[in-house]
């Protein structure tokens, strides 16, 4: 089985929250090396050459993202996104709680790489325990001279602030996050300008996911080539996959990118006895379902796109033949209708409309015309929104309406015939 523990190494075996345990296992070595021997450009180059892509959802090449920062002398910010609120995604807060120093080391490396002297981590408000653990990690690292002023006596200053969110799913969208971090209403900003040009407090900013930044540590340790040698052509390295749904052993599994969909299901214990496979939602609630014909696709960014879905944040939800697809669709659409910030028309109105219609279907009061409407509206609203949340309402719904139309048709009300 190709489970390979890189970030997850040691979790469950040692108390990595203890800074001395973490250091005894080689922790903060890369940070010490970076501060003493590497230039920021070296870190940036390693990041770029490794082929690391963002693990927050969009899969954007991290090195490229960093390279957009303008050289205009303005202060730069590194913001680590630990909002993790997408249903099915549960890897970031595991890292935060189980191996906080790895996350912190990754943030420090990222901050150093882009030339930032004050980094932030935005932690979802509900992760109170994770916040407390991480805050202690910051305190311990500060006491060890690893962050703050004059790091390890080199004269380098980097501050890290942990900020607890107070918001909603939308505060995970990077510009919604920046607004929330600034104390404003958590709603996405109009782009352009992109955060690289005008982000936190209007300054050039990089927002990276927890897992993305954490991978900087092994990349520096083992080299960019090591990371780039794993995976498929344009999807490199490893990925923590949060497997949930109708499997026997749901959980976080770290695998080389390119492991097949079928293998991932098996790693998670396979289906329960007597059940047959129906679909996988491979990239979080915002992704479309893929089906039997995709079981042998490698789990990488390109193949998931080819299958009509995406790898997203790596939330991998398995559905078997007992699934009520109408209820599942309502559940998904309701989430987006509830989490829409309401700024833009398609997301605000479209999500709520579809939710009400699906609600009727669940109660067996669907109309035949609704089915056409669902296809027409859900097909049109994607791409018209201000942020990606609005574009996430439809993929799951459309994929299951198309695949399992009989389940929806069965909930259409009997036509009343005039007496």
């Amino acid at each position: 089985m190709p489970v390979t523990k890189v970030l997850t190494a040691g979790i469950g075996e040692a108390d990595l929250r203890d800074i001395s345990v973490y250091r005894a296992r080689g922790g903060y070595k890369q940070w010490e090396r970076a501060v003493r021997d590497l230039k920021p450009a070296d870190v940036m180059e390693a990041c770029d050459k490794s082929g690391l892509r963002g693990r927050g959802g969009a899969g954007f090449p991290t090195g490229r993202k960093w390279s957009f920062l303008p050289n205009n002398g303005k202060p730069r910010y590194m913001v680590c996104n630990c909002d993790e609120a997408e249903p099915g995604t549960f890897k970031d807060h595991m890292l935060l709680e189980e191996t906080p120093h790895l996350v912190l080391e990754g943030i420090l490396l990222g901050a150093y790489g882009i030339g930032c002297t004050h980094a932030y981590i935005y932690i979802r408000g509900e992760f109170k325990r994770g916040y407390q653990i991480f805050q202690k990690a910051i305190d311990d690292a500060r006491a060890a001279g690893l962050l703050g002023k004059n790091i390890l006596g080199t004269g380098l200053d980097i501050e890290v602030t942990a900020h607890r969110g107070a918001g909603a799913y939308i505060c995970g969208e990077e510009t919604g996050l920046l607004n929330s971090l600034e104390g404003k209403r958590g709603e996405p900003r109009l782009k352009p300008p992109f955060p690289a040009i005008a982000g936190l407090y209007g300054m050039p900013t990089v927002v990276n996911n927890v897992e993305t930044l954490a991978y900087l540590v092994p990349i520096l340790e083992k080299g960019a080539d090591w990371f780039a040698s794993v995976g498929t052509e344009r999807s490199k390295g490893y990925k923590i996959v949060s497997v949930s749904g109708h499997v026997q052993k749901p959980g976080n599994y770290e695998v080389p990118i390119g492991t097949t969909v079928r293998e991932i299901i098996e790693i998670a214990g396979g289906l329960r006895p007597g059940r047959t496979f129906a679909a996988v939602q491979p990239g979080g609630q915002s992704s479309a379902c893929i089906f039997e014909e995709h079981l042998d696709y490698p789990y990488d960014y390109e193949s998931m796109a080819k299958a009509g879905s995406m790898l997203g944040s790596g939330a991998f939800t398995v559905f078997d033949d007992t699934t009520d697809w109408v209820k599942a669709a309502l559940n998904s659409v309701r989430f987006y209708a509830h989490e829409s910030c309401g700024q833009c028309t398609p997301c605000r109105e479209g999500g709520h409309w579809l939710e009400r219609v699906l609600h009727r279907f669940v109660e067996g009061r669907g109309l035949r015309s609704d089915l056409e409407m669902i296809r027409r509206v859900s097909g049109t609203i994607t791409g018209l929104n201000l942020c990606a949340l609005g574009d996430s309402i439809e993929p799951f719904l459309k994929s299951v309406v198309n695949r399992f139309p009989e389940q929806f048709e069965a909930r259409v009300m009997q036509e009343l015939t005039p007496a």
Partner: protein
Amino acid sequence: MAEAATEMVKLTIDGVPVEVPKGTLLVEAAKKIKQEIPVYCYHTKLGPAGLCRVCLVEVEGMPKLQIGCNTPVADGMVVHTRNEKVESGRSMILELLLVNHPLDCPICDKGGECDLQDYAMAYGRGASDVADPKQSKPKGVDLGPTIVLDEERCVVCQRCVRFDDIIAGERQLVVKDRGHNDIIATSTGDPYRHNFTGNVTELCPVGALTSKTYRFKSRPWDLNRTETSCTQCAVGCRQFADVRYGTLVRTMSVENDDAISDGWLCDRGRYNIGYLGAPERLTQPLYKQNGQFVQIGWDDAFALWAKAINDARAAGKAVGALGGGRLFNEEAYLLGYVMRALGVKNLDWRTGRQLQASPGANASYEALENASSIVIAGDIAELAPVLWLRIIKAVTRKGARLVRVGACGAAPGFAHTDVTNAGEAAQAVAAEGGVAIVWDGADLALGAALAATFASRSPLAYIASEQSNARGAEAMGLLPTDGGADFTKIAADAANGAYGVLALFGANPLRNAPNAETMRGALQATPFTVVSELFMTESAQAATLVLPAKSAFEKSGTVIDIAGDLLPVNASLQAPVGALSDLEMLIGLAQQFDLALPTSEELDAAVIARAAKPLAAALGEARYATSEPLAPSSSRSIWDGGGTCAHDDRIATLRREPVKVGA
């Protein structure tokens, strides 16, 4: 201004070549070829927000539809605003906007001038697949003294929220809750109240925000619209006066009025119109006999007035005229002309605290925006409300430094430095760049000190007048220039019985003059006093002859604004029968003496010639001094003034805070 030539960009919109400056947004570029890209959230003055998504266009080479409001032009860009792809996206947006929209157009004030109606008709699908009940939300929400909110009609374009933040600097309005439950509210839950609230009713593309004064009053197609200038203060904002069957039902801003109002109106300019139809308007001349007013005809009024002047002359008593800061230029000019023809030199437009109205050199409002430092002295925010919006713009969006000298009213909610004198102001301004001085014309010593201190920086100078056409009155010569007495001396001498006739035009000194007590004595001791007024004011009550005047909406003429621009005021309303304009009154008086009057062409020419010449004076110049020193005061409200506000019950609720009359 010497700026590098703007780089031009060539593109095609719907097959038509367009050339616009680099950085232009597609919505603006399309206007060049008169092609409409519909918008809700975008507004020229507020910029893009990207919320409504109705402005979709196709840009060749881009897979997704783009929003025209936030896409800048690029060389060689090929844009479509009318093809099938655009139409399908756009009609989807309109369909979505109507999912929860109540469609209560028949009882909505916006009906007939609503962007949702218009775009739904022009670009919508014309059919609906909605089978579920619409979401119900609060209707008829009392948002504050001026505005009622209908939450169901809101399309969440956030224009109101952005106006409140970007333009008014208030940040009272916010979006509360989220998703389809979001509602517009004040962040604190307090009533929405400041000097510019009415603008959001115009910005609102739908009928979600409506003015209490206009609710259920009219349909736009029943309105007779006149473009005119607001005369409620000296800023002179361009405005539309909308009259329905003889009643002025609302005034509206003129969006492209970049030079004067920048597209806004203050709440006084917008809402103080109730007095026009007040039943207590004067409509017949009133003559006081044995302490009682009796109604007389105009012929008798003129005859009595003329006789009083002749009697005074025969008895060797003085004749004087005060006021004029609220007259139109033509009237002010004729007042000076007639009085001088009758040998009267005791003329002064000044009856309040303000002693000077013309700064000597003209500077435009737009220039003020670009000053690096703005020095204010006096309660400019309340004296010149819409000009204050420019100051907010200069400070919050263009980085200007604001320095307030002496008492300047309530502290603004943005960066500023308070100092006590001109010397400190010089320390506080930016070392580089242009300086602008905005002074209230009251404390002459302070004005002179500011002029002297900043002389080396060649400042732009503005005087924010208390009365709407003080500059015009000054330019037209209503000053004691050839040896006459100024207003403090007129009052003092008249109180001592030296005057036979005293006339007041558009002035109510007993209400708000700093020498109100002396004025009261003057009106009592003078045997014949004439007051031209709309209402039975304190001063009118003390007069012998009260002449019912037309309001500024009922006559045409010109005024001069703070920047020195000559602005037209066009009659939009019929005056009540029996009222005359001050011009007509002066003609009536002149006829009693067989005076030869200028023809209307000569009058216009004289006004234009005098308006074109800024009075050669520096701030605080000595010749504007008065014989009696007056205590300058600077705390006031936009609702102060001649007293028209007192004749509209609602106005009391609009005031931001209780205003001490005459304080």
